[in-house]
């Protein structure tokens, strides 16, 4: 059973006097125990919004997020309910996610005491244990965040979250503020932790080449919607959606430091005024007449080209799926 499952999630930002921004417009995803789901997409496509909605920091306008089989609630003024404490988040900027004026040990102790809702001392052996788990010396506990590098701080942020013994962790671009070697280290740390602790990890990034190396499953997002999902290696070697194809085509080979496509014509459209039909159609090199009229749903595909029938509407997890009329017509089952 999936630990974290997101079904038909919509998040709108309503602002007075301006059109509503549909930051997330119908996303279904699920993450299993011991799995890393990598979510990639260009800046502004709604990745952070999805992450924040997943842990309850923004309210969905429609759809559900379930954690361990029960629906999540938005974090309000009150204290977060105990059954959600196993769902945690790591933020993009490790300089902002640790309090500069509190010692590292005390901040990790917050995590240790989270489940029992007790105040744990910074010299608790469990603090030291979790520091070791993320590869930091136990002496780190006595120091302040500014005494650490970006990569070390990200380890600290991860340690704090792990201290709460989560079963699912959402990481919003945890690598993007780090240098290349720190990125590689944190990435392999995530793989190690996933195996060791059977974590369900939702890893968000705009860097396909990094995610490719750690994610078991890849989801590609474009303008608020997931356009393709599937086992990472399958997508990498055989992308089915034109946007994914452009993304992978834009990653310098072999495995260089990839960035997002500049090869695609046009700009990312304003999410407040998404294009009709398939949201990718103004930039799609393969668009057909239907694309500007009807929106394709994410649909399970069969291996290469055999047409089995019409689309199905089961929630999408690891099955190979894409949201493109070209594929739905020929490959859906």
């Amino acid at each position, binding site marked *: 059973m999936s630990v974290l499952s997101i079904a038909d999630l919509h998040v709108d930002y309503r602002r007075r006097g301006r059109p509503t921004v549909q930051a997330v417009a119908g996303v279904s995803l699920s993450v299993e125990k011991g799995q890393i789901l990598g979510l990639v997409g260009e800046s502004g496509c709604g990745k952070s919004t999805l992450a924040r909605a997943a*842990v309850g*920091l923004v309210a969905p306008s429609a759809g559900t997020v379930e954690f361990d089989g029960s629906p999540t609630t938005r*974090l309000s*003024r*009150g*204290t*977060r309910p*105990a059954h959600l*404490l196993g769902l*945690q*988040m790591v*933020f993009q*900027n490790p*300089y*902002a*996610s*640790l*309090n*500069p*004026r*509190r010692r590292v040990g005390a*901040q990790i102790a*917050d*995590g240790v005491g*989270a*489940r029992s*809702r007790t105040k744990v001392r910074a010299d608790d052996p469990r603090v030291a244990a979790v520091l070791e788990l993320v590869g930091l010396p136990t002496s780190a506990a006595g120091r*302040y965040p*500014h*005494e650490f590098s970006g990569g070390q701080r990200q380890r600290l*942020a991860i340690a*704090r*979250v792990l201290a*709460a013994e989560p079963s699912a962790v959402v990481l919003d671009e945890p690598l993007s503020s780090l240098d290349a070697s720190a990125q590689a280290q944190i990435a392999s740390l995530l793989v190690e932790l996933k195996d060791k602790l059977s974590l369900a990890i939702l890893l968000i990034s705009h860097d396909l080449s990094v995610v490719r190396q750690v994610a078991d499953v890849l989801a590609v997002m474009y303008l608020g919607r997931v356009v393709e999902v599937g086992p990472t290696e399958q997508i990498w070697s055989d992308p089915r959606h034109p946007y994914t194809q452009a993304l992978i085509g834009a990653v310098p080979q072999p495995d260089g430091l990839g960035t997002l496509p500049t090869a695609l014509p046009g700009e990312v459209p304003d999410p407040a005024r998404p294009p009709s039909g398939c949201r990718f159609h103004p930039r799609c090199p393969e668009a057909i007449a239907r694309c500007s009229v009807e929106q394709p749903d994410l649909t399970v595909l069969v291996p290469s080209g055999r047409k089995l029938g019409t689309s199905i509407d089961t929630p999408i997890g690891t099955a190979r799926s894409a949201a493109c009329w070209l594929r739905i017509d020929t490959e859906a089952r």
Partner: protein
Amino acid sequence: MNILSRRVLPRSKPLTVIAVTVIAIWLLVALLAPVLAPGDPLSQDGTPFTAPSGAHWFGTDELGRDVLSRVIYGARLSLPLALLLVVLSALIGGTLGALAGFLRGPVDGVLMRICDLLFAFPGIVLAMVVAATLGPGITNAVLALVLISWPWYARIVRGLVVSLGEAEYVTARRLLGASTWRALLDDVLPNIVGPILVLATLDLGGAVLLLSGLSFLGLGAQAPVAEWGSMVSHGTEYFQHWWLGLFPGLAIFTVVLAFNFVGDALRDVFDPHTGRAHG
């Protein structure tokens, strides 16, 4: 004040050192006034309008009182009252501002509208009206000035609580199950102390000035008490006897300037760009 010794002193500018020294001297003067003052600030046994001389360094006033003694005793009044004014304003404004920023909603709305209202009046005019209504006297002057001063603290503390409350480390803490109160106490308030200390230090100079101002207008300290503002006020009536107004005026000037310099230095220490937040 470990942070002060580590961060201010090594790279402090000479101006800061001078300012701190000036404040220290004034504090000593206030503390040791009975020892330092050559005479009684109220006794009228000198010859009126004696120019500064060996016997009376700062001369005597229209009643023959020793101006130096009065300036020295004036420090006993101005400095503690300015401190009281600032502490009361910071406590009241800070508490209300923190509540507004924390609770948001209607409480916030009402409080901030009250602040806007108070900002809309010229402060000193409002203080004059209140002080006059309550009746002249130094206590009422302090109360009137607290009334016009607290909104500054309220607005700044509210802004800090709101912005720091949205800091990712607060969100991370809340996701770990901390209550909003806990996050406010542990993560937000300690980060507010610095900026408020800066504001309060800068404000101390202003408080001395405001208190003197009300006394100057006859609404603060009443005769025969030695108070710098009212001394300046009397001095202006006898312009040819310049020493009556000059020396208490200089006292106000040095105190205000010194507090401003120290406040600026503190601001550098707590400035998020130079502070250790990104160290």
